[in-house]
């Protein structure tokens, strides 16, 4: 078992002939992901790396290869349409790596996906990885290790750092999901916590949040009532000034809302562990895993 995907999941890559798409398609295949199709309009009929069939539309890719998930590597101005296309094609999971999608586009995309029951991860995210089985997106395969810790995070390299801390300590991961740093995203913390709760392979969960919005607080409250597995949180941006966008479009403190201090306080008030330093996450989780 694992969360959202596994080694069998049939994946189509939208933008497979682009610079990023081709690079990461190769990385995914190399990692063992079941990449069954690529999509680039006008390149239908070709084969990517002499192996993966390329189609003009996602619909054709799904019809011909039975793709169940798609991952998007197209430029920001085309990315929303790529999500619409994936949603119309019949895949159940769309992972949008592209960053820079206008919020206005995402507000239209979200109800479209909901009506069709399609899960979106991202945009502006590194995707997800099930160590030893498959990865969809750009998470580096060499830093993970098979194990029982579920990780969900709003950031990219900070997640790698945390995974690395765990792996270095011999603590493996069940699934790692980067949900993205934008203000409007598909799958959120709660969706992932729920999936980890249901996943038989996950024994503990790490949640990596940051400033901006109130998703971490919502997740902490949800976890208090619904998560039976140990959870540790980390919030980046304790030193971030208000009103400035810290790289991620979603990482901005608005008024008094969305500070790291407030988020950490919520975790503490609810009795959930909060790490002060990234390395402390490793210490805490390693402690749990030894006990178990």
């Amino acid at each position: 078992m694992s969360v959202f995907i596994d080694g069998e999941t049939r994946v189509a890559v939208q933008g497979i002939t682009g610079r990023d798409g081709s690079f990461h398609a190769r990385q995914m295949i190399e990692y063992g992901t079941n990449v069954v199709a690529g999509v680039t309009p006008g390149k239908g009929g070709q084969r990517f790396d002499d192996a993966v069939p390329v189609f003009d539309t996602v619909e054709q890719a799904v019809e011909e290869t039975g793709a169940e998930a798609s991952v998007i590597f197209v430029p920001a101005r085309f990315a929303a349409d790529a999500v619409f296309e994936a949603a119309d094609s019949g895949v159940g999971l769309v992972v949008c790596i592209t960053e820079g999608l206008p919020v206005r586009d995402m507000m239209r995309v979200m109800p479209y996906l909901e009506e069709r029951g399609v899960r979106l991860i991202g945009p502006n995210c590194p995707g997800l990885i099930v160590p030893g089985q498959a990865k969809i997106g750009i998470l580096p395969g060499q830093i993970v290790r098979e194990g029982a810790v579920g990780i969900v995070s709003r950031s990219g390299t900070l997640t790698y750092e945390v995974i690395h801390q765990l792996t270095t300590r011999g603590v493996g991961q069940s699934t790692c999901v980067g949900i993205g740093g934008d203000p409007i995203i598909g799958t959120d913390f709660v969706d992932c916590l729920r999936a980890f709760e249901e996943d038989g392979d996950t024994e503990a969960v790490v949640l990596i949040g940051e400033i901006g919005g109130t998703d971490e607080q919502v997740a902490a409250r949800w976890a208090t009532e619904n998560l039976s597995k140990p959870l540790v949180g980390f919030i980046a941006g304790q030193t971030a000034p208000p009103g400035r966008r810290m790289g991620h479009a979603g990482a901005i403190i608005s008024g008094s809302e969305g500070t790291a201090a407030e988020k950490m306080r919520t975790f503490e008030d609810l009795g959930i562990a909060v790490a002060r330093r990234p390395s402390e996450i490793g210490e805490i989780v390693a402690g749990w895993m030894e006990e178990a």
Partner: protein
Amino acid sequence: MNIHEYQAKEIFRSHGMPVPPGEIATSPEAAAALAEEYGGRVVVKAQVHAGGRGKAGGVKLAAGPEEAAEAARAILGMQIKGLTVHKVLVTPAAEIASEAYVGIVMDRASQRPVFMVSAEGGIDIEEVARENPEAIHRQPIDPRYGLLNHQASRLAFHLYDDIGVVRQASDVLQRLWHAYEDSGATLAEVNPLVVTPDGDVVAIDAKMNIDDNELFRQPDIAAMRDEEAEASSERRAREAGLSYIKLDGNVGCCVNGAGLAMATMDLVKYYGGEPANFLDIGGSSNPDKVVAALSIIGEDPHVRSILFNIFGGITRCDDVANGIVEATDRLELDLPITIRLTGTNEEEGVAILEEHGFQAMIDMDEAVQRAVGAVS
């Protein structure tokens, strides 16, 4: 992206909203000339990307040209929340019978725009939200439908009783919606929306924030960026494709990834230091970006120590190492540099750095501690 009040008013005007005339002055003389032109009382308002202008003395009423010049003299050059005022807006003073607040914000939780109106206008709306939340009426907008007429009308009925004023206000709300939507804004507000003694509805203030990710399709709005209002280092960083925010500390940080950059700043603070900046060089291993980053950090006179924190995933450590070598060759920096490098091609990266006399570290905590300690 923030735009100034006068720019937001231009957008409002182009959507047919009732906005009083007004022009920009950058000198007391120009302000006086505008006051002369408008006749009667004028308001002189600092144009600066900071809230709380009024409290800071950045908005002054002037009875005529002389007072307008005086007001402009006082405001131009003033610092508001650390930002220098370079421009004032001169606009005729409105007669006010009542003041309301109307605004649209992008609400993250519901993933839609939300209208907010309050009959308590002209004051800090966040204060109203805290102390008297019932005074604010909210209307979530389905982005597939936009503001429906009955919703505009319902909001207007919350503010006004007179049907004539309600109709005008509904129309203003519709136009505000289109201004928000067409501009790709994440915030548009009028505070206060005024009813004059004659029963006319007028937007005498205007505030808009634009989604940065929209700017590619909004060239007119992108051109409104006030480069004078940015720190020059931030402008250079933006032009180099770096995400950089200047802070007040002395440990310069150069990191790949926004989350890791924030965590690095936090760790600098944790170990007793003060971060000098947020800087994300992104996923690219382009040495030019490393050069630009190092040069921007190096020019901050407060910086006493520079910390690289690179986690190679897509970014390859050897590429970043080459960038650092090249950058330090090109720039003459007399500052201690601490480098933490791990992940993809870590060994090659470390080898390159050591070849050039740098010591590379693997552990983030140790690297941060050393960088903090290097501040003399």
